[in-house]
């Protein structure tokens, strides 16, 4: 490993993108992710790239669509209300199979909501916020180091599968500073892009990037081929972390900042005789169902903790599939789950289940 720096999460994302070879950034400022744009504005021109503050989020995502169509690495970032505005573009990108990286540093909603951290865009990110049958890979880092590593990985995944990859963090992750250790050389994979609109030079037929297919039979066929791709991603790209899973009876399922708070509860819980483990999904789509299966032997119950009304909860319930009880603790609007409240919930579970 190379250089070590104390960095804000948002800056680490931007630095990671540049290291991954991202040459274009289009965005519109919104708290709590504006430092990404600041960093890009300062650094991208120095590496021969283009930073452009668009007139709106809608414009920005369509610029991403355009740049991505040429096979260059491109990124946009925003926070919840801004990501809502980008949904139409995300659906078009999916329909045209144009790779791109989109960062959402989530804040409390709905509507303009607040600016404090939240995880209430889980449904929008994992179930398709735009129209049509499509998926995007959703990565959920939980430290500044992981923001860096997963942002680099996001570009690789986007190119490998010609898909949109969303890096989703909460306001805390964007704003906090931690030590980041940068690699001397990034593990960059760039497959050929024979589909890209780079100019045919009268040597090949035209490449056309479009999401319009008026023949139902053709459109269905394209959807089916994408489903095949999504299936492959589900098989190959599920990522998660298990902590203290050997013989735990109660499993907290949490991602991002909340997973870290959950982790800090586990030691105290053990001292009270509560044997608690943690499942931390790193990919939210594809959701790591295997992690749930893996702990089913010792697990008595699951506790999903989120900064939302219970969104990932539904994926946890689908994965547990009635085999064990699933409990939930959530805070909203920018409130962050407290250690003591998680602990109390675990005590109640133990009391109910014996």
């Amino acid at each position, binding site marked *: 490993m190379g250089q*070590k720096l*104390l960095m804000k999460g948002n800056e680490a994302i931007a630095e990671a993108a540049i290291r991954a070879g991202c040459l274009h950034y289009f965005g519109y400022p919104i*708290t*709590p992710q504006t430092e990404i744009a600041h960093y890009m504005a300062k650094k991208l021109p120095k590496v021969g790239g283009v930073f452009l503050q668009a007139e709106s989020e809608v414009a920005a995502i369509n610029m991403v669509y355009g740049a991505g169509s040429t096979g260059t690495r491109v990124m946009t970032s925003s926070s919840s209300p801004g990501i809502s505005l980008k949904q139409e573009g995300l659906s078009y990108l999916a329909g045209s199979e144009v790779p791109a990286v989109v960062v959402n540093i989530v804040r409390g909603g709905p509507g303009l909501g607040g*600016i*404090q951290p939240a995880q209430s865009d889980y449904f929008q990110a994992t179930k398709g916020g735009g129209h049509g049958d499509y998926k995007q890979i959703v990565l959920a880092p939980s430290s500044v180091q992981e923001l860096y590593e997963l942002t680099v990985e996001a570009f690789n995944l986007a190119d490998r599968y010609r898909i949109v990859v969303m890096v989703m963090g909460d*306001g*805390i992750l964007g*704003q*906090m*500073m*931690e*030590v980041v250790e940068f690699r001397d050389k990034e593990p960059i994979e760039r497959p050929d892009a024979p589909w890209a609109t780079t100019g045919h030079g009268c040597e090949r037929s035209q490449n056309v990037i479009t999401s319009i297919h008026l023949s139902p039979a053709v459109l269905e066929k394209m959807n089916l081929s994408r489903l095949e791709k999504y299936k492959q991603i589900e098989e190959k790209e599920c990522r998660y972390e298990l902590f203290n899973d050997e013989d735990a009876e109660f499993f907290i399922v949490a991602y991002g*900042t909340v997973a*870290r*708070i959950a*982790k*800090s509860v586990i030691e105290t819980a053990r001292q009270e005789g509560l044997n608690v483990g943690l499942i931390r999904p790193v990919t939210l789509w594809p959701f790591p169902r295997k992690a749930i299966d893996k702990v089913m032997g010792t697990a008595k119950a699951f506790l999903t903790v989120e900064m939302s009304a219970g969104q990932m909860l539904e994926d946890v319930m689908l994965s547990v599939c009635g085999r064990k009880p699933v409990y939930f603790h959530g805070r909203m609007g920018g409130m*962050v789950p*407290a*250690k*003591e409240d998680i602990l109390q919930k675990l005590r109640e579970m133990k009391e109910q289940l014996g």
Partner: protein
Amino acid sequence: MTHEIILAGFGGQGILSAGRLLAQAGMMDGKQVSWLPSYGPEMRGGTANSSVVISDKPVDSPVLSNASALIVMNKPSLDKFEAWVDKDGIVIIDSSIVDRDVKRKDIESFLIPATKIASDMGNTAYANIILLGKLIQERQIVTLENFEKALYVVLPPKKHHMIPEEMEALKIGMNYADK
């Protein structure tokens, strides 16, 4: 050993940069660190706070609900965070602004008129450093050597000429005997 530190006061008192200095110096000491600021409209003239964790092991959570050390530069912050301090924890109070000591008996407190001392030095911006000095003296959270180095990283180059004075302010804080 894990230090969980909350620094709180008004926006503009250097609360966020004081936290960053601790985190930067802690990292240079080879520790695991995190720094989490309050962000948003309250930064502009309202209350500001930052949470710093400096530890020998990886930082579980950057979000604090208790603290081993507290630095406060206004009264609302003392009112809010006094209850968060661990038993035998330490509270450093800027007594030029906060007109009371801690109410609890199970924590240690130091009252330093930091803003007044800094103003006498010719720059109220040193108040945060004076308070950090006392904290470092009492709890050895970071080394002086790396604190000085951290100043060069955290402060913009146009302020580097102030660093000798910042270090002097730090030492005034370290040596301040209260009560």
